[in-house]
């Protein structure tokens, strides 16, 4: 992998701009994320944070600029190919497969690595049966590691909110990503749950050897675990730095923290 990444950079956003009709949602946004980093993206509501995520994971194609992942230009790729390339994400408003069980949610993410043909699944041929059993074992193992194994047979939609959030992260992990994008993982959580989540994020980063890029409004989480923070407002980068630097940056205070005090 090192050969394909320059100076350990895993993701590069290169002068990315996206327009919807007349609205410039993200304007000339550039960012390098190094392997193993935990980077936060903050900004007021409607600043274009989720749009940045959608560009990285292929839901949107930027009007101009490039997205480079592990040395490959993935601009305009379909979302499923980007997932296969090694980027996984969660959504701001949890988007689980509510009708499926917890285990099946995780197994969906392993589908992209399935080698057996459709016909061998339709007739339950030995190669498919073997692969399916392996996938189930891996899925259970993953649920074990994130503490959801006991709920494997529950319907995902019936889980309490906090566990749905956790399952969504587990589902993303099941795609075997190297870069994980978390969109407001602490939204709707109480302080105690947020503390648990912070520990959880740090743990999975080490255990799964991940690079993490996250959007969050909860300043305690952002300041507590992010090594580097980028601030955007109206689609434009206005600051970047360590948590300490961001907290004392006057532009950020004006645009973002100031707004919260109102």
């Amino acid at each position: 992998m090192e050969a394909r990444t320059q100076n350990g950079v895993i993701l590069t956003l290169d002068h990315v701009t996206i327009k919807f009709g007349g609205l410039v949602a993200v304007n000339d946004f550039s960012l390098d994320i190094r392997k193993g980093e935990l980077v936060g993206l903050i900004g007021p509501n409607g600043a274009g944070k989720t749009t940045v995520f959608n560009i990285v994971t292929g839901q949107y194609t930027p009007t101009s600029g490039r997205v480079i992942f592990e040395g490959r230009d993935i601009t305009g790729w379909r979302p499923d190919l980007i997932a296969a390339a090694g980027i996984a994400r969660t959504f701001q408003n949890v988007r689980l497969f509510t009708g499926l069980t917890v285990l099946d949610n995780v197994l969906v993410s392993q589908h992209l690595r399935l080698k057996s043909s459709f016909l061998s699944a339709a007739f339950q041929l030995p190669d498919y049966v073997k692969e399916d059993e392996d996938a189930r074992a891996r899925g259970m193992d993953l649920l074990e590691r994130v503490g959801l194994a006991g709920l494997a047979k529950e319907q995902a939609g019936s889980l309490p909110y906090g566990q749905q959030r956790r399952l969504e992260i587990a589902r993303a992990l099941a795609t075997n990503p190297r870069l994980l994008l978390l969109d407001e993982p602490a939204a709707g959580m109480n302080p105690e749950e947020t503390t648990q989540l912070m520990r959880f994020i740090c743990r999975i980063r080490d255990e799964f050897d991940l690079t993490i890029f996250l959007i969050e409004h909860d300043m305690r989480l952002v300041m507590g675990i992010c090594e580097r923070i980028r601030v955007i407002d109206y689609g434009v980068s206005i600051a970047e730095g360590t948590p300490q630097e961001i907290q004392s940056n006057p532009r950020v205070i004006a645009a973002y923290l100031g707004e919260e005090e109102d």
Partner: protein
Amino acid sequence: MTLETFIQQLMNGISLGSLYALIAIGYTMVYGILRLINFAHSDIFMVGAYFAFFLVAIFRLPWGVSAILAIILTALVGMIVDRAAYRPVRNAPRISALITAVGVSFFLENLGLVTVGARPKAFQRPDIMARVIPIGPAAVSGVSIWVPILSLALLALLLFIVYRTKVGMAMRSVSTDIETTRLMGVDVDRVISYTFAIGSALAAAGGIMWACKYPQINPLMGIYPGWKAFTAAVVGGIGNITGAMLGGFLIGLVEIMTVAVLPGLSGYRDGIIFTLLLVFLLLRPTGILGEPLKEKV
């Protein structure tokens, strides 16, 4: 083709196209707001023609009064369908709403078969529609002249409602973002109800004029015009009112002209339109004027 037949066919195509345009509006408006293909819309069209038929034939009302009353009654039917069948499934998965729509469509058709019978009825059209009018070297039937004129007047009225009135503004707002509009204090259900009323009224006008053009009506008469009008809405860019009008005229002209130029294909004319639809979906899936529908992530 002589100039004479060309003019005749052109007028014929334009009048057919204007009818498709009238029906297509109802599909596209409902789709724009609810993301629902209102399969029953084609049968609302049929209901409109029958109302006019009964008002003229049984109640002996003057023609113009019958037409206006029929349009009003059909608008009510449209609102009732929305209230009784679609509103209860508004928050259900989209497929449930689509299935309900198919059910309503089948219900109206078969209710028609049961109550008025499958045998076509002769529609008494007003004299001005039947009269033949000379245009240059060609003799064109009154239908081919009056239908486009009346349709264009109705379309202009519709554009006025949608772009110049408060109700129209509410409709456009609901189609952009239903939840936000609700938060602004707009009674979304009522706006949807009006949308059904307007769409159904236009379909009824279309149905009555259709019956003037092809003066045999039966309970299944809406199926083909309905689907072709929906095709027109897709070709024009679903959700886009101007697109639906354009698509309607385009489909009408293509249908008439293919058969006029290649009479051997007349048996295939319905097939040609649907083939055109498949080709359009393949080459330009968003239609002529449509923008890709982006779902919010």
